[in-house]
């Protein structure tokens, strides 16, 4: 029941541009004097190495070139499927040699949503860069989970759904590449 109407328009997006590190991750570009730590360095504190999984990948443009000026933000629940407002957030930029981003986090649990449907474990991503007039949103699911009843995945056609599923490359380690354009273009969400 949509009884309440919005009174104001959302402020429009503009590109984050090529210098977003200054505002969002200054320590990563050696502006060390101002903030003690960059935001989102560690998504969950006090976790042991053996509790963590790794998700790595690159963000490719339409020429197949891996971006090195992109920022990826991630947000997720804990292993029990609980969202804690103050933990679960991370910010990543690609390594300037390998052009890969690496998220070290705990594997999220599945959860029952407000709609009473069960969501398979996933990490939510927000992608910002020069050339992107709006931040892009997508989700990472995991190939070794039960996925067929997930409410989002079940509305996406089979040929496309793979772009949202991280491949397991070894124990506790997943690959998730993002394609901005081309045959393998990732599914982005209006969510």
């Amino acid at each position, binding site marked *: 029941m949509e009884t309440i109407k*919005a009174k104001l328009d959302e402020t429009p997006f503009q590109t984050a541009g090529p210098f977003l590190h200054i505002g969002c991750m200054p320590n990563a570009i050696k*502006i060390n004097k101002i903030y003690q730590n960059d935001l989102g360095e560690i998504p969950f504190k006090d976790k042991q190495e053996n509790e963590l999984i790794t998700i790595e990948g690159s963000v490719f443009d339409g020429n197949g070139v891996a971006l090195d000026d992109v920022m990826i933000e991630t947000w997720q629940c804990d292993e029990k499927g609980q969202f804690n407002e*103050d933990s679960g957030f991370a910010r990543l930029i690609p390594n300037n040699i390998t052009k890969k981003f690496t998220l070290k986090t705990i594997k999220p649990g599945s959860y029952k949503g407000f709609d009473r449907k069960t969501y398979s474990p996933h990490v939510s991503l927000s992608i910002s860069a020069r050339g992107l007039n709006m931040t892009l949103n997508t989700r990472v699911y995991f190939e070794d989970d039960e996925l067929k009843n997930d409410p989002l995945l079940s509305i996406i056609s089979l040929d496309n759904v793979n772009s949202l599923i991280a491949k397991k490359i070894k124990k506790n380690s997943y690959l998730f590449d993002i394609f901005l*354009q081309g045959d393998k273009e990732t599914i982005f969400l209006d969510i």
Partner: protein
Amino acid sequence: MNAKSLIKRNYEKHPEIDFPDYKSSIFRAPKNRKISFPSSNTETIGPIFNKNIIGKLDNDLTLNFSKNKISPLGHKIIVYGTVSDQFTNPIKGALIEIWQANAAGKYLHDNDENPAPIDPNFAGCGRCLTSSSGYYEFLTIQPGPYPYPNRGIEWRPMHIHFSIFGKSFGQRLITQMYFEGDPLIKLCPMVNSIRNEKAKNSLIGVLDTSKSNTKNLLAYKFDIVLRGIKQTYFENRKEGL
């Protein structure tokens, strides 16, 4: 328990993603339609940020990088406003991070090829959390306009980049504030990627001279609106009942 859901984005009031006048978008903007899906818990609960991350000078860009309290070059300005949601509710504790060029139009960044001088007393980096009434304020200097390669060399209007977190990941916003009266605004392809005039104008900080006498400062007011979150109460029932 309260079920939360975000109201849908109106893409007519946002920039076009695939906008070739902005050259960098040509090989980066996705070509397919987005998949529309109702927000769930992931998009409506957090993250929120604790005030203990904020340092005393984090919102004073004139001092947070200065050596021996030497002011950066350029004239000082206050940039202020409120963060609210689409239902006009102020958002308390919203995290605002800003970044900008110095008075000469140069960023403190290795990838900035503009042959303008850096300012040793200015990093162009600031952040704050909004107050209980959604208010925020930065003290900074007027950023310069700058040239950049696009369709040939073009000039960006003076601007400050804004990143905002409200109460949830689905409210995440990254944008730019422009300055009232800047003739470069109407020439900028990034601004013009927003087709709707009213939406475009909402990114222009409004000049406020009321602080010029007391503080010797020009001020610009920039109010920010994040997506509305609807809350509906429902009983925690067991399945099938």
